């Protein structure tokens, strides 16, 4: 290996480390944001349960937290997707596609069966959870299979 080759490798490894650091920093911030929002929402919910009703100040605080969560999650996701490469993007797209199809097929099928009175009305939370679960499983399947 040439001297130049060794120098180049050092530079490339440094760039690689910077990329990984950026990736994990954004992911860390998103996780921290989720933890804070989770704690806050649990706190507000517990407070509401204890008092039996929502005071106006709690309602406003909760509304602000919800909006902040949505905006920061959207911003964090935008930063994340500007950082990742095409393979990571493809993993996310495939996960999203499978999640979307789960929703698109599960809801009308469940609704149609409910019209036949063979099952209860569609449960939005079950459908949401199923869509997210399928999307997550698809994403990690690709990640494990392709690495």
């Amino acid at each position: 290996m040439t001297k130049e080759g060794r120098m180049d490798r050092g530079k490339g490894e440094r760039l690689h480390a910077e990329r990984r650091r950026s990736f994990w920093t954004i992911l860390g911030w998103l996780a921290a944001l989720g933890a804070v929002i989770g704690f806050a929402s649990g706190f507000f919910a517990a407070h509401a349960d204890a008092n039996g009703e929502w005071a106006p100040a709690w309602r406003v605080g909760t509304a602000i937290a919800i909006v902040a969560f949505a905006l920061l999650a959207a911003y964090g996701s935008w930063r994340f997707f500007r950082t990742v490469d095409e393979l990571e993007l493809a993993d996310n797209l495939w996960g999203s596609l499978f999640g979307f199809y789960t929703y698109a097929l599960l809801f009308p099928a469940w609704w149609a069966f409910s019209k036949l009175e063979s099952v209860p009305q569609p449960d939005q939370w079950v459908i949401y959870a199923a869509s997210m679960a399928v999307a997550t499983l698809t994403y990690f399947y690709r990640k494990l299979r392709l690495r």
Partner: protein
Amino acid sequence: MNNRLRVLRAERGWSQAELGARLDVSRQAVNAVETGKYDPSLPLAFKIARLFDMPIEEIFSDDEGGANGSR
């Protein structure tokens, strides 16, 4: 799709992370391309060709094509 990426990288003594940094993709992406588990986009394939200063068809080929497959 077959490719000679692993051979070309080895000839230059680069690690997967090193090549990934030069191509602005992750080490995992380089590994996935080298092992044939992921076909790169056309822009990335051209970037690879430019980096190695070779025609794209000397690096990549379809399963019946000419590049010396690395799978």
